[in-house]
């Protein structure tokens, strides 16, 4: 359904060229959830934003690659056509529910907007649909909340409102960029359960961006691990989490604590990720990798398929 091929998004600033996204390829099918994991600055959010054409401009630019939605390129669409895609087929939930709602508009207006603009509903029809949407996301007494403003809602409720807006026009693809990071654990668990229920009911495809492996394990069918603008490993969730092959994935998994792990000492990755303005010539992880070899310094590794749908970019697997 969504096919991203060799996508490169570069920033041009006084510091030179920043390779924020540097050759990313992945695909996503209907009803499937793909997790995109990585540390901040690895390019996961820019990848997501460039899919809906909202990467910062003119600072950044898609310099090469292809993004296809149902076999049709969306990079060449006009602004007007792109707006239609964003309204009807792809929607997005951002991390911070406090800033993604308009503080001066009522909840009813904001949730109803995509319905009026993209589904040609009139006021009364959209009102009924909005109440239904809010009820599906477990907002108590939705009828009485339509004329409330965002500040009257708690963080967890606001994120559910953001979810209702994203799902209002019944999109095919939802991009969720750290949608639960700002929420408390219990509210987070509830939000994820709602999202899963909606996905099952409608066959929604979800691109889930997060740095939290416990969420990946719960939500995603497949995972892609990003490092310095590139996907270094991708595979089915269970397989990738139980037998990670790329040294970065291994190190990352060994460095996160979990409630089931106890006090067993964590392995920490020394150093920090490279600057996107000054990437190493060879493998981008080489300076921090404990298995680095001479050839890692010379050229970026090819992608090796080690199993069905499980591929790794590392010379160790040649």
């Amino acid at each position: 359904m969504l096919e991203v091929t060799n996508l490169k998004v570069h920033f041009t600033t006084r510091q030179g060229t920043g390779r924020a996204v540097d050759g990313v390829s992945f695909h996503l099918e209907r009803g499937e959830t793909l997790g995109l994991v990585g540390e901040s600055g690895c390019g996961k959010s820019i990848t997501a934003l460039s899919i809906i054409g909202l990467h910062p401009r003119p600072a950044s630019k898609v310099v090469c690659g292809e993004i296809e939605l149902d076999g049709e390129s969306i990079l060449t669409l006009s602004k007007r056509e792109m707006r239609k895609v964003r309204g009807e087929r792809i929607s997005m939930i951002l991390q911070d529910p406090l800033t993604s709602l308009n503080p001066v508009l009522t909840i009813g207006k904001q949730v109803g907007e995509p319905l009026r603009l993209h589904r040609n509903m009139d006021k009364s029809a959209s009102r009924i649909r909005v109440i239904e949407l809010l009820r599906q996301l477990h907002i108590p007494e939705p009828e009485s909340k339509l004329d409330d403003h965002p500040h009257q809602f708690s963080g967890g409720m606001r994120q559910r409102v953001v979810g209702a807006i994203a799902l209002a026009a019944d999109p095919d693809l939802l991009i969720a960029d750290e949608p639960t990071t700002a929420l408390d654990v219990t509210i987070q668990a509830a939000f994820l359960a709602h999202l899963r229920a909606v996905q099952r009911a409608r066959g929604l495809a979800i691109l889930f961006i997060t740095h939290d492996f416990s969420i990946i394990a719960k939500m995603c069918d497949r995972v892609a691990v990003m490092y310095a603008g590139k996907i270094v490993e991708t595979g089915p969730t269970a397989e990738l989490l139980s037998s990670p092959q790329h040294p970065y994935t291994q190190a990352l998994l060994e460095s996160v604590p979990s409630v089931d792990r106890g006090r067993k000492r964590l392995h920490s990755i020394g150093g920090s990720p490279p600057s996107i303005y000054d990437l190493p010539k060879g493998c981008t992880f080489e300076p921090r990798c404990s298995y680095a070899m001479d050839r890692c310094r010379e050229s970026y590794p090819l992608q090796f398929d080690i199993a069905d749908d499980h591929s790794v970019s590392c010379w160790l697997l040649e």
Partner: protein
Amino acid sequence: MSHPDPIIGVRDLKKHFPIGGGTLLPGKERKFVRAVDGVTLNLHARETLSLVGESGSGKTTTARMILRLITPTSGRVVFEGEDVAELRGTKLRHFRASVQAVFQDPWSSLNPRKRAESIIAEPIVINQPLPKAELKGRVEELLAAVGLGPAVMRHYPHEFSGGMRQRIAVARALALNPSVIILDEPVSALDVSIRAQIMNLLRDLQESFHISYLLIAHDLATVRYLSDRVAVMYLGRLVEAAPSEELFENPLHPYTQALIAGSRSTTMVDEEAARLLASEIPSPVNPPSGCAFYARCPVSTAARSDDPIFYERTVTERPELIEVRPGHLVACHQFDPKD
């Protein structure tokens, strides 16, 4: 709780913040947010005690009262056997030096106009002045303890990454050889791979300097990795406290169970549990008269039809914190022996 003398003892601590105005109008009652509503805790030598709970549960307010940054409405904080509120002069300075803090955001907790050297040296300059040469040596020593070289001394905070800044904040907290460090969400602003570095550093420092930590965190995985004991707060009160291992293996309070289930990678809550949990946390201005958690609690909700007498109790009667096993306390009607 087998140790006789805690370093810090918190006794029935309360903080009620007044809200709104209107006290001048006769007959109008002043309203209060019961941010902390009767917390009792002990922090022992060399242990890590974690306070966990969702935003608004009162954990940071409790920490700030312990640090004597805000005055409790009632209750006491006892440090080395003395009431912190009564400390004056040398004793107060000794308390200030002994109880240090590291905060969440290393971007706002370091003065951007000062070099790392003066940031770390400041507590020493104020509290235990040293000759210049010795001071520099001491700063180098502190930097080495947190894994940084002497070269960073000349640099300003903006030149450092988040992880390095947090190391500098830890070095500053160590400067006066404290016996207690309060860690308020010390790693939650850091990136995944950096978190492990800082958590390991905190554990190593505890080992070598024999410090007690009071850790405030909402991420249970972090809590599990760092703590010896855990206390769970909900709406200003403790709902459960136990040795870490015991709490994670055998949580008793339904709220603790929900928190742990939410943090596990293997459990997905079902729709019904999700709907319950998604209901709002009650207001700390008018907390429910019974158990503060009853409206979100699966046990209470199930009892509504199956066991109306039990349900009635959860709605009307506040559960007491009871020791159900040595060191394991829980405030839940299910475990109240009065039944």
